[in-house]
């Protein structure tokens, strides 16, 4: 998957394009997140606007990222989930572990 980074204040936004299912997808995702953690960027917002599918392995990587940032007292949040993914986050109850927002400005405000 393709991931590009942009900054809004002290929040790092990762715009993700593609699926999170193949080993290469997972490496791309983990690589991008770890690069931000290495620079001590602990407020991460994942933009799922162009993400189509997340399988169980992808979900595992996402949970792992959330745990890593949580261990450093940081925050991982997601925005723009497609209906299928929103349903996945609901029944896995990940919404209780990871902040999920419908709009980017709303998500950015939540970091303050």
């Amino acid at each position, binding site marked *: 998957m393709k991931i590009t980074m942009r900054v809004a204040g002290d929040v790092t936004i990762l715009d993700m394009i593609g699926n999170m299912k193949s080993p290469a997808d997972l490496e791309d995702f983990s690589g991008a997140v770890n690069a931000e953690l290495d620079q001590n960027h602990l407020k991460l917002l994942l933009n799922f606007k162009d993400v189509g599918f997340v399988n*169980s*392995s992808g*979900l595992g*990587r996402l*949970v792992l990222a959330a745990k890593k940032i949580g261990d450093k007292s940081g925050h991982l949040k997601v925005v723009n989930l497609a209906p299928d993914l929103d349903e996945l986050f609901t029944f*896995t109850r990940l919404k209780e*572990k990871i902040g999920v927002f419908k709009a980017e400005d709303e998500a950015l405000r939540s970091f303050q």
Partner: protein
Amino acid sequence: MPVIGGLHRTLKGKAALFILLLSVIGLGTLAAMFLRTQREMLAEFEAERMQIVEHFVVGTLKPVMLTGHADLMSGIMASLHSAPGVQSLAIVRTNGIEAFTDDATMKKVNDRLGENRFSRILKEPVQIVPAGDPMLKRAVESGKSDFVRRDVAGDGTVTSLMYPIANEEPCHACHGDDHKVRGVLVATFGLSASEAGTLQSMFWFSGIAFVLLLLTAALTYLFIVRIMAGRVSNIVDQVNRIVEEDRFDKRIVIDADDEVGQLAISFNHFISSVEIYRIEEGREKERLEQTVFERTRELREKNDFIESDLKLARRIQQNLMPEKFPTPPEADFHAAYLPCLHIGGDYYDVFEMPNRHVGVFMADASGHGSSAALLVSIVKAIVSTAGKDISSPSYVVQIINNTLAKLTPDDSFVTLFYGVINLANGKMSYSLAGHPPPMVYNRDSGELQYLQTNGSLVGVFDFDRFEDSEYIFQHGDRLLVFTDGLVEAMGEDGKMFGRERLAELFKDARYERPDAMTRHLLDSLASYTGGAALADDVTLLVVDYKKG
């Protein structure tokens, strides 16, 4: 070879002829231009000489004429007449008769001077220029010199000059002071026909000699080219043989220590380089083949390991699945399982519990292969030992969570459904952790509902809290528990099978027996995916509750 041979033939044949013709034409043109230039130079030379002689003659005669000594004048005239390029020279009176030769003029001068200055000249008057000659007339009347140039045979040029001599002040003693033209110097300059012919012959000879010299040089050049081309062609033939026979160990014969020999030496250096390169290339090829062989062996070994791993995972998973289900009168149970190519981590079980309770269990481990199979093995072990507690399914889920959180990597987890059904009253306590919500459809009422999730992913978060929920079965209820492999299966259009499609099929098959219904669902799935390999395990578990 064709190209080189062509060059050689061209040098020997058409090109040689072309060069020869070009040389002759070029050299002929050069010779003509040379002769033309020579002729123009000759004409200029003659004109210049005429001017020099004119100035010399006039400059010499004038002062002597003023002295009035005719004998001295006559001697100087004779002397000037023999000067180079002077063909004729005379001073005439205005009527064209040669001066100093008539008594009338002598007497007139002697009378004017009052003395017998000039004795009688013993010479008959000579008409040098015909009386009334136009050129003479113009010279006398205008007082300006005039000349006419004419060509003579043999490319010579002759110039006739008429130079009027005015009556100047020092002459007044003899000739009065009228300042009129008193006489005219008539002279002819130029080369004679024989001199011009000799000079022209000399020019022609020089031109022909020049052309012959150039022709000789051209022929010599062609001869050398032919010899050199032959030697170069020989070198090319040797190179071609080396290439054709693939014998880069051979070398070209060096026949002389000149430029062609140097060319052969250069070729030999090149051939040596090729030979060294080919030897290195052969060694590199051997190294590559060896590397490919080793990598292939490693790949085969790894592939064998993976195959073995998959076989192990498949065996583990097959051993996990129950061979048969309980058959109480209150409920029918049926399950279907479709493993994907890579072996997923699905697991299900239906087992009897104390006091007419039945446990219904389904788990789906993240990932694939032996790691997923290992996860569900742990789950099954825990369920087998702790799962007989009918009071709280969430208690069992809690144990599974705490165990997996300690034992497995942070990105591994299990989703699960664990329901404990009291067959006597239809009450079901269940824990639904991170798992797709099961559906319950009532045949009689036509109502479809989903069980509510009450827990997150299992095995990720330490000491996460899991809860129990309750559902009371009604008569005609059918419960469908499934893994995400079913709803996330991709169709040919790239879209997922989806929960709504499943729900519709589930409702449509409400009057079919559980086994027929699961077959119906799986047939629909296969049709939807176009028979493509599944990306994840698909598991279905149906519970038909008959009492209520």
